[in-house]
């Protein structure tokens, strides 16, 4: 049997081999999304209300995350966490288990922090573009600052932020393909493994491209539906 130039059969067989690792990819996305939003929300509030020292810390954090490649952030955590633990152990006679730090943890932490920085900017922008008139109206009917935030600002800001949050989510999903560099076995890592076994990299990368593309397509459709739902209520009027 002569060797095929392009092996369709291999390509199709790749999907069921890769998909068992899809939950790992989803887990990274899920964790980074949730913690990214939490970090983003609190950092956005810190920046908006100019909480003294904290604002500086947040600014430095965002500047570093946005100013360095995700790949390097990943490596910094991958190598940095064990080294930090060893330093702690040496200095304070503590007994942290260095081997207990799994690569997945490093990925989850670094992706959450990365996502948090970008979400901060999105959320801050959304909150700041809420109509000041509505905020004043809320104060004028006797709402406290916290009530105004909860009842008026956040619902409005969510509406404004959704398209950008959706973009962040797509970026995050695709960025998970870097996790293999610190030996986390997600769909990308497994794909590379399969590719190296049969020396059929091209077929595998097509399979991976399809998986990422279909996933992102579904995500963007879901975001569209949410956006539509939210906007039916208060279409902004030209004033």
């Amino acid at each position, binding site marked *: 049997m002569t060797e095929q130039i392009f092996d369709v059969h291999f390509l199709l067989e790749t999907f069921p081999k890769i998909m068992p690792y899809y939950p790992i990819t989803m887990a990274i996305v899920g964790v980074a999304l949730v913690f990214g939003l939490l970090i983003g929300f609190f950092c956005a509030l810190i920046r908006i209300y100019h909480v003294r020292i904290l604002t500086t810390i947040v600014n430095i954090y965002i500047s570093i995350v946005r100013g360095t490649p995700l790949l390097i952030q990943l490596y910094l955590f991958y190598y940095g966490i064990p080294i930090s633990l060893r330093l702690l152990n040496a200095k304070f006679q503590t007994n942290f288990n260095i081997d207990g730090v799994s690569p997945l943890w490093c990925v989850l932490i670094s992706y959450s922090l990365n996502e948090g920085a970008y979400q901060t900017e999105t959320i801050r922008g959304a909150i700041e573009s809420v*109509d000041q*008139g*509505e905020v*004043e*109206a*809320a*104060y*004028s*009917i*006797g*709402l*406290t600052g916290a*009530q105004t935030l909860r*009842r*008026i600002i956040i*619902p*409005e800001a969510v*509406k404004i932020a959704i398209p950008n949050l959706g973009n962040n989510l797509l970026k995050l999903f695709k960025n998970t393909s870097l996790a293999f560099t610190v030996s986390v076995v997600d769909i990308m890592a497994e794909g590379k493994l399969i590719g190296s076994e049969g020396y059929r990299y091209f077929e595998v990368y097509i399979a991976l491209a399809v998986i990422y593309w279909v996933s992102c397509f579904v995500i963007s459709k879901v975001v569209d539906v949410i956006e539509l739902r939210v906007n039916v*209520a*208060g*279409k*902004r*009027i030209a*004033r």
Partner: protein
Amino acid sequence: MLELKHIQKAFGDKHVLKDVSLTVKKGQVVVILGPSGSGKTTLLRTINFLDGADSGEIVLDQDHYDVTRIAKRDVLAIRKRTAFVFQRYNLFQNKTALENVIEGLVTARKVPKVEAITRGKAALAKVGLADRVDFYPSQLSGGQQQRVGIARAIVIKPDVILFDEPTSALDPELIDDVLDVMRDLVDDEMTMVVVTHEMSFARDVASQVVFMAEGNVVEKGTPAQIFEHPQEARTKQFLARILRD
């Protein structure tokens, strides 16, 4: 009822309110006139602390508040007893007319929802919008939106309602709808402070007309005094220009 004493306010080095004092008795309608930049809107905003004054005193019923060292708690207390109607309505865009109206009751005053809805519907009926209860602001005309704004103000049964040019963002044919609602409130003896350019409204319903210019009260009196026999040159000049059209 409401008394402002020596209110001063500056934005940067611009003195917007130089030394303004004003007394509003219960059930009175005080209309504030003046050219733009005279500080009339700012004065209104200092009353419920949308802009905090730099110095002066606010007396609401028996309660004296020194604006320079007022506690957050007192600001909230004043806001709960006063209501504000905005030039650009400032309705909550993602809430229906009814939700706009009951927000101040349910969230700020912890009125039970059922009672709030009853009161909210009554307030909307009063401004002629009983059939627009579930409409969003974007589905309402400017005049209707402003009437929702007024319903949002009256539903909390405030001691005084502050109107900041309530009709100046409206198309001419919608102005009367809003003014009619306001006249209705006058008949109910609602205490009102109104910044407006509607001279006929001022002439018909004001208990007191206050003319402001450059951060000062230039002249005050009954509508007859101000419109028929203004004393100050500044007032005469302003009225001559306004009443010409």
